[in-house]
Structure formats: structure tokens, C-alpha cells
């Protein structure tokens, strides 16, 4: 599940922000901002992708680098949003 999400997000990033350039290696922990992959408009594109693909709503308060600034963070964020609620 984790790998599937990670791979899908990575494919989106490569296609949409790197325009298919696979020579640009992206490690799971690489910061999208520090590496110049994503700008302010790019974050909004990324949020739209996550909402469309995974059927979740990303609240304004969730649009922070801690949730979205690397493959690992996005994967964890999507998993947390799509996980089934645990019965009390």
C-alpha cells in the first residue's frame, strides 16, 4: 500500500513537475521546495492531485510542508487520511 501510493505520487511529480525527466533522482526524503521541484502554484496542483486520486479532502490547515514536502511525507499523509477508523 505504502509503495503503491509512493510510486503514484512519484510518477505524478516526475510527469507534472519534472516533465518526464527521470535523470532527476528523487529520494523519499528530498524536500520538493529545497530542490526546486515545486513552487507555490505546484503545491496547489499537488493538493488537487491527491484529492482527485485518493478521494480525500485536504483541509487548509493540512497544506503545510510537514505533510507535503517530500514523497515520504505525502505518503504518510495520504495513509493517515485514507486509513479506516479504528474501533474504540
Amino acid at each position, binding site marked *: 500500500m505504502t509503495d503503491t501510493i509512493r510510486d503514484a505520487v512519484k510518477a505524478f511529480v516526475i*510527469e*507534472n513537475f*519534472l*516533465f*518526464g*525527466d527521470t*535523470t*532527476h533522482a528523487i529520494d523519499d526524503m528530498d524536500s520538493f*521546495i529545497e530542490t*526546486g*521541484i515545486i*513552487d*507555490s*502554484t*505546484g*503545491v*496547489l*496542483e499537488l493538493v488537487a492531485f491527491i484529492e482527485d486520486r485518493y478521494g480525500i479532502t485536504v483541509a*487548509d*490547515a493540512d*497544506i*503545510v*510542508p*510537514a505533510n507535503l*514536502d517530500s514523497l515520504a511525507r505525502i505518503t504518510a499523509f495520504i495513509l493517515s487520511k485514507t486509513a479506516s477508523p479504528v474501533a474504540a
Partner: protein
Amino acid sequence: MCGFGGYFGAVRDGRALLERMTAAIAHRGPDEQGFFTAEVAGLGHARLSIVGLEDGQQPMSDTTGELTIAFNGEIFNYVELREQLRAKGRQFRTASDTEVILHLYDEIGEDCVSALNGDFAFALWDGRRRRMILARDRMGVRPLFYTRQGERLYFASEIKALLQVPGVVAEIDPIALDQIFTLWAPIAPRTAFHGICELEPANLMVVQEGSVSIRPYWSLSYPDRDAPARHRDKRAAAEELYALLTDATRIRMRADVPVGSYLSGGLDSSITSALAAGMAPGGLKTFSVTFDSAEHDESAFQHEMARALGTQHSAIACGAGDIAAVFPDVIRFAERPILRTAPAPLYKLSRLVRETGLKVVLTGEGADEVFAGYDIFKEARVRRFCGRQPCSRIRPHLFRKLYPYLPGLRQQSAEYLASFFGASGAALDDPLFSHRPRLDGTAATKLFFSGDLRARLSGYDAAEELVTRLPESFARWHPLHQAQYLEARFLLPGYILSSQGDRMAMAHGIEGRFPFLDHRLVEFAAALPPEMKLKGLVEKHILREATKDLLPPTISRRTKQPYRAPDSQSFVGPGARDYVQAALGHAEVSAGGLFNPKAVAKLHEKCSHHPASGFRDNAAFVGILSTQLWLTAFAGAGSSTAKAA
């Protein structure tokens, strides 16, 4: 205002070459042409008659025939200089400013440039000492390019004249391309053309047999941060500013033809128009660009200002498709790739001015550099403010206030705002601190460079080179002054005055004049304390104070709206021009060898489907398209290298 070309050295068929060079820049001087040849020198001139209509023909020689000049531009203080020279016994045959330079050179040699208040580039042949003097104005308003072929030096107002010289090859300079895709402009003396240089602003070149020397005769400088301020009294400073600006405008109204004025609706051109309106016998004509898109259009302010001044106002509409329609011509005149389409509406505007019969316009250009008007100055201040409290969740919200016109920023959290602007981890001692987010954001466009181009650049860093060009005193200046220097010394001549200024105006034989770039005003403003220019987050504070009685309050208090034009959306969608598809198609991009064709295709597709693409995508799209058009216009058939015709 004109164009010229010439050479130093023995050239076979020199007259014929001069005719070809001058014909290539005939748009700069449609009124008449003239030529001069000597044993080892030649000058050709295309004239736009503005001062001394009947007797100002060029090249112009002195009475001995030993000194001959080809001159582009205006010497605004020529009246005063002529009187001073007459008092010394000098006799004048013409009413032109050109003859003043000849006499002044004869009197004191090449240091005469220090006495000139004007926008100029000239080539002066001194037959006595068998040497050629090339000079350029302080701020870089007028252009001057040169190249060498063996022992010979060729020079001209535009590069297309140099391409007439046998052996000169139109080849893209990869370093210049890297600089454009990082800094928005090449770092002079480099140009987009490999082997063709630009004489830097405020520089003198002396060429004689066996030697070429280049030296600055003036430099932009700011006081040391700890030095006592020269202007502490705000009211006195405002009064002095007003007097200087009024005089700068007055001497720029000198012409034997009517002078008009651009009127964008912003503070700066409103000030120059208001001052000029009181000095224009018969009334002032003003000119504007309007846009279909509300985010770019300022027509309400333009009309308000034109009504307030009672000017005869004309506007040219820039609608869907208009930018694409002229863009290939824009690149042919700009002679370089560009990352924004903003020059295109100005190309249309100068055509409108020409159609109304005017040759000269004032503009408000330069005020943002001189009085700290750009958003980037405020951005740097906010970044420093945030950097002092990196954990603050409140301070980054100030970034939103800076760019209310950028929807991408309006919706961002404080954490993202801080990250985008490097507010938390930025090196405060970075000499490029103020510009680092812009440079990094722009350099992201190099993602599209081909593997071959990347290999040729082999790790070159344009920002690093920029740092090596900073003066030793730079580190002692206030951060605002450091940021102002970066704008005024590099981007102003490298892009604003050239790609957006001289080249777009002269494409239709229009001379722009810039009161805010009078060197007396530039020096005065540089010495002002930073807080008089940028007070808190209010830009151009002292300028507003000095001119508040001149303008309606809605204009005087208006926050700066940067001049922008639609970028990638100008070239996509229904009605897209065929040349765009061809220039960005796989075949031409591959033939050019500069960009990755697959990535370019994806970018084209993305911009076609998402017209609200971000800065990086827009800059890349316009940069790649303009580079491809540059190749077609100059190197031929999409190849990055070709012999000139």
C-alpha cells in the same frame, strides 16, 4: 536618437560594409543616413532627427576634419555646455548636441563624458591620434555592441548590424543562456551571441593600433551602512528631490519636435507626465497599453490621470492573440531570449506613438530602482524579519501582503510561505540574499536544458559569477542598497532598458527618455537613508511625499502594481499561432539542441491545459519559445550555430 555602426582597422570595401550595417539598423534612424571612411576607420549613421533638424547630419566632423563622431542618443545639458564652450571661444556651426561633444572632446579629451548629462552611445574617430573612442551613458540607456575579427574591431548600436560583417557568426552563447535562465539577462559584456560583446554602461573604450583599453568613468555607489546620513531632514530631502526631478524632466523636454509621455496609471509615469504636462507647449500627448485581463489592466487609473492632466490620451489594446502576433518580431529586435512577454505590449505601444507622428516619449522607468519600488525590496525586508524568529507562525503572513495579485500565494499556509521565500534557513550574509528566491525560482527553468547543453555548461553557476561582479564596498552597504544595486546595475540595463526599453521603442523609431535616470537624481537617491525610500513596507516613500501635491490621492497613494503581461496563455488555446507549435515541436527543438524535446512537449501540453501555470512554467515556456525564435531569426533553421547571411 539614432543608430550607428563602424569599424577600426583596415577594411576592404569599408563603405559598402558601412552601408550594409546601417541598413540593418535603419529602423533606429529612418530620417537619413550618412557615412564616413578614413584609412583605418569607418562610421555609418542612421538618423532620427530630433535636435538640430536641419544641420545635425552625422557622422559629423569638426572644422579640421580630424575629429568625426557618430552618436546615438541625446545630451540633455547641451545648451549649458555649449554656452560654457562659447565662453571659451568655441564657435558652433550647428544647433545640435552632437557638435557639443566634438568640441568638448577637443577641449578635454575622452574625459568629456563626465560632463555629459544624457542618454548616449557614441563612436568618435580622432584622426590626429589615430584612435577610436567608444562611450556609453551611465545607466545603460543606449546600447553599444562590438566584436573583433583579427586586428579589426567592429561596433554598432544593435547586433544585427555586426552580423553584416564577413566572418561574424550568429551562435548562441551557452553561458549567456544560463545567465538569462537564472538572472533574466546576460551579465555584460556577454551577450546572447558568442563572441559579440556589449560595452558596459558608464564605460569608455579607447582603441588604437595595438591596444584596446576599457575603463569605467562613473559608478553607482551607496554610503557605508555606518556612515552618518547626508539627508536627515525628510522635508528638505523631499524638496531637493522635487527640484532635481523637475529639472531632469525640463531638460528632457528639450527637442525640436513634440515630446509625449507614456502613462501606465502607476505612480512613476504619472509623475513624469504631470511634470511634463506643465512644460509641453500645445498640450501633452500621453500613451498607454490596456489589457483584456483584469489582473494586468490599469486603464481606470490611466483615464483618471489623463483627465486630471488634460492630456490628449491614446491607448492601444493588447488582447488575446496580440502578444503572439508580434512575438517573433519582438525577439528579432530584442536580439536575445527573454523569460517574460512584457516587452511585446511595449512594442505595440511604440508603434502607436509612431502612428500619431511623435518621435520622443518620456517614461517613468527607473523610479523603482532609484527609489526602491519593487516588491523584491519589501520581500527581502520581510525575509530578514522572519529570519530573526524562524519559528514564528505570524510573520510569514506578511508575504501574502506583498503579492496580493498572485493567487498561488494567497492560499498558502504560513509554513509554506516561509519555505518558499527561504525565510527560515536563508543565509543573512549571502550577498545575493535579496534576490536568492527569485534566482533559485528562475534557475528551476534550466530543468528543460538538454543533456548536451548541460554538458557544455559543466556546472557553471550564473549566480556565482554575479557575486564576482560586485564592488568591494558592496559588503558595507545597507541590505536595501545592496538589493537596489543588483537591480540598477544588472537588471535595469540588462533587461528593462534594453529588451523592454530601447529595443522595443527603436523598433519603431521612438526615443524613450527617463527623467528618473538623470545621474544627479540617481546619486541623490543613492545617498538617502534607506528608510526614506522604503518606509516599513511602503515603497518610494520620499517620492510620494515630494510629489503628493502633483497627483490625485488615488494615484499618489497607490500601491505599486508590477507591469506584467500574460505569458504562456498568450500562445495556447484556440487561435494559437502555427509558429508556436513548430518552434516547440520535436523536430525544431531537437535541431536546436538546447532543450529536451520531450520535456518541452509536456510543458506545452501542460500550459495548454492549465492556463494558470506558475512562475517556473511560464518563465520556461516563454524562455524556450523565445530561444527557439532567436535561433530561427539569427542562426537559421533552428540550429544553434550558423553563418550569418
